């Protein structure tokens, strides 16, 4: 079997890959009908921008040739594009050390634990009044308690004593309510 390299990349399942990248955009922007940067960029636009940057780069932004590597690469580019849009939108100062800048940009990391607490508080506020407020609140609090990086859904399921499917259902509920942008704008807009 030929060795996978940038010159000889592995076969990529683009159908799943594009959906993964779209999900990454959705986490930042929110629903399909939400936009950033004075209404000019949606989750779909962010995916397109990330792909354009990848294709336009003569070396594919130093892609290692693997599918996992490409997902991580495109998600990283997308995150930076999103930050650029927020800065243009005037919501984040370029030198911001705000909690949300830390969430979307590793270069501007604030105190990790403090940022977690702020996110937790913001999300609890966001789910207030929701018919499943109690379950969502438990879900948000549990997210701050997980200790390992892998198998996140399993850890959440164990902590909450629910099934992995239920973890995913609650995540969907949360995604319907909040995205990073929404929490981010209220955080950075007021505190940065």
């Amino acid at each position: 079997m030929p060795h996978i390299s940038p010159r000889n990349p592995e076969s990529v399942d683009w159908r799943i890959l594009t959906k993964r990248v779209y999900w990454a955009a959705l986490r930042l922007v929110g629903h399909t009908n939400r936009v950033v940067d004075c209404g000019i960029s949606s989750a779909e636009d962010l995916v397109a921008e990330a792909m354009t940057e990848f294709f336009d780069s003569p070396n594919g932004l130093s892609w290692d040739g693997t599918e996992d590597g490409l997902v991580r690469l495109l998600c990283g580019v997308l995150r930076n594009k999103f930050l650029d849009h927020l800065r243009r939108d005037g919501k984040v100062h370029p030198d911001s050390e705000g909690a949300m800048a830390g969430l979307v940009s590793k270069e501007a990391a604030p105190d990790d634990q403090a940022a977690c607490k702020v996110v937790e508080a913001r999300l609890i506020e966001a789910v207030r009044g929701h018919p499943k407020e109690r379950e969502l609140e438990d879900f948000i609090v549990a997210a701050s308690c997980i200790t390992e990086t892998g198998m996140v859904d399993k850890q959440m399921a164990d902590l909450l004593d629910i099934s992995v499917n239920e973890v995913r259902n609650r995540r969907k509920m949360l995604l319907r309510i909040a995205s990073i942008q929404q929490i981010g704008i209220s955080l950075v807009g007021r505190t940065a």
Partner: protein
Amino acid sequence: MKNKSKKNEALERQLAALLGDPTTADSSEVESLYEEFGTSADLVQMAYEQAAQTAQRYRLAGKAVPPHVQAALAQTKAANTLEGVPTSKLGEIVDWALKPFRGPTETLAFSHHRLTHNSEKDKRLLKQLADEVKENWAEEDEVGRR
């Protein structure tokens, strides 16, 4: 730099738990989320068009198309035949076809998936539709043979 990314570890973990991690999630979760929150745009086609444009620019400049663009072009090109399609993909197509349609429906062909009780009239209509489909197939087969 390493220190900084370590500093973000708890935050990244929290975010992965709350909103999911698109880089590591299994494909069933990716599909399930996309079903609910996805866009109507064909993202693979979009990738193909972007790769094609980039490739064209290189060709016009008389330069070789970079390997990552070449690979993307070959892998995103819309297939119009099932020849050479991996078994996993064929399995997905069959699963998709057998999955009950949950949205609002106008035609009986879709609605029958949701029926909990088949009346005599329903059965008659379904049989009639099935016969029509079989007739159409038979006609197509005959045309094909000629």
